[in-house]
């Protein structure tokens, strides 16, 4: 709904920066409330911050920095709250907002490059998240990569992202879980959506290559990188008869 924004209500970049800092320093780590509550509060405040940036058409270093922090927060939430009820945490909405932030960020990065200004220090970190978030779609990844200059494509975070892409493409579940274990935290969070499909693939593939088409629990746990029988149960139930009881 289009509210009547009075000019004096719109916060200038410096204030938006302070607001974001406040959210990060004082709110996000609040242990007195469940994180899901914290997330709701922060999410709404961040949306308001984005709105203020947009209506002033501010796309400077401050905007970049704040948007980067928002993306990191959304990535974190996507993983930390993944087991919550839809009413408490909606992963789709979170993803949407993540994508919005990321899109704006990419535009800002491009603007900076075009204007010949020094590139933003964290650019490759976020371009990597962008690739990781699309790792299931070859088209999307290639599309994202095609426009990137060589120096970015050869940076460490992008190379890592492309390696993750490679692992997902070749259904290398063993390599994928090893990769996850060693990846920087937020990069691993971004790949969260791939874990379940990889586990399913591991079970199906291992079973198919086993005598009688069944796997032992030990093998299933190893292949799917599940810690306990409880973790693996949903997959076992989905693939009836794959477990050698």
């Amino acid at each position, binding site marked *: 709904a289009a509210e009547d924004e009075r000019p004096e209500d719109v916060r200038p970049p410096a204030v938006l920066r302070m607001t974001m800092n406040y959210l990060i320093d004082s709110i996000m780590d609040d242990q007195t409330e469940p994180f899901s509550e914290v997330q709701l509060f922060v999410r709404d405040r961040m949306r308001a911050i984005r709105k203020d940036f947009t209506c002033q058409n501010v796309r400077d270093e401050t905007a970049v920095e704040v948007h980067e922090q928002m993306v990191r927060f959304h990535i974190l939430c996507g993983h930390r709250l993944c087991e919550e009820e839809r009413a408490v945490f909606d992963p789709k909405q979170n993803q949407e907002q993540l994508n919005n932030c990321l899109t704006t960020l990419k535009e800002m990065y491009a603007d900076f490059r075009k204007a010949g200004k020094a590139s933003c220090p964290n650019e490759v970190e976020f371009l990597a998240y962008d690739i990781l978030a699309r790792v299931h779609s*070859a*088209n999307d990844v*290639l599309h994202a*990569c*095609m*426009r990137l200059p*060589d120096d970015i*494509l*050869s940076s460490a975070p992008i*190379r890592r992202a*492309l390696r993750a892409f*490679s692992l997902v*493409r*070749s*259904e*290398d*579940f*063993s*390599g994928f879980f*090893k990769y996850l274990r060693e990846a920087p935290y937020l990069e691993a969070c971004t790949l969260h959506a791939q874990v379940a499909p990889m586990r399913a693939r*591991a079970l*199906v*593939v*291992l079973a*198919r*290559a*086993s*005598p009688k088409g069944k796997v*032992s629990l030990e*093998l299933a746990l*190893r*292949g799917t990188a599940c810690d306990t029988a409880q973790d693996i149960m949903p997959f076992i139930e989905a693939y009836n008869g794959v477990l050698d009881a």
Partner: protein
Amino acid sequence: MYFKLQTLHMCRNVITAVEARNFPPLETFPISQRVTFSFFVGRLALYKEEYDKADERLTYTLRNIPPQYVKSKRMVLESLIPIRLLRGQVPSETLLRRYNLDPAFAELTRAYKVGNVGKFAQILDEKSIAFMRTGLFLVFEKVKSLVVRTLFKRVHEIRGKGARADLGDFLVAMKAAGCECDMDDLECTLANLVYENRVKCYIAHDKRMAVLSKADPFPAVRKAPQ
């Protein structure tokens, strides 16, 4: 033009228009234009991983380029070679030399022929940016699993083609081929090959053995995966 702009999805509109029924038959256009069009249709099919279609279109393109246009032929070959590798068709060294292909193609081909997994992966890694830009990244990634298949086949042959294979042998071979992997990785790779019908065997994980099919455990690579 759309390729240069990197907006490939726009190509579809042009192609649809040309392939529509009310468009004049292709034969009425000069062969040079048909060949160019064919080339781009083939390249687009490659991006979309429609390998059969890409092969057909690119082969047509190659056949219809007069012999003196070496550079054009080279451009087509760059895309066609990896597609043919998926079918187990290896370009000869003569061919690679005649059209002055990037040395990487020769090295990849050599690695492919002997199952040198580590070398293949290394070259792919070095060339990853270039291949990304020319749309060859995905198809060479697919070829990688065939290189592993070839390596395993050689191990099988060296061991006298017995019905049982020690997974330890495969692991040694992978390491010798410059591939860093452990038993978990090996079982994963082999299981995936079985799933894709590239190898016919059962894996007895606890015994670290593979029980190979008596008839044709390493079926010839003929059909490209879609």
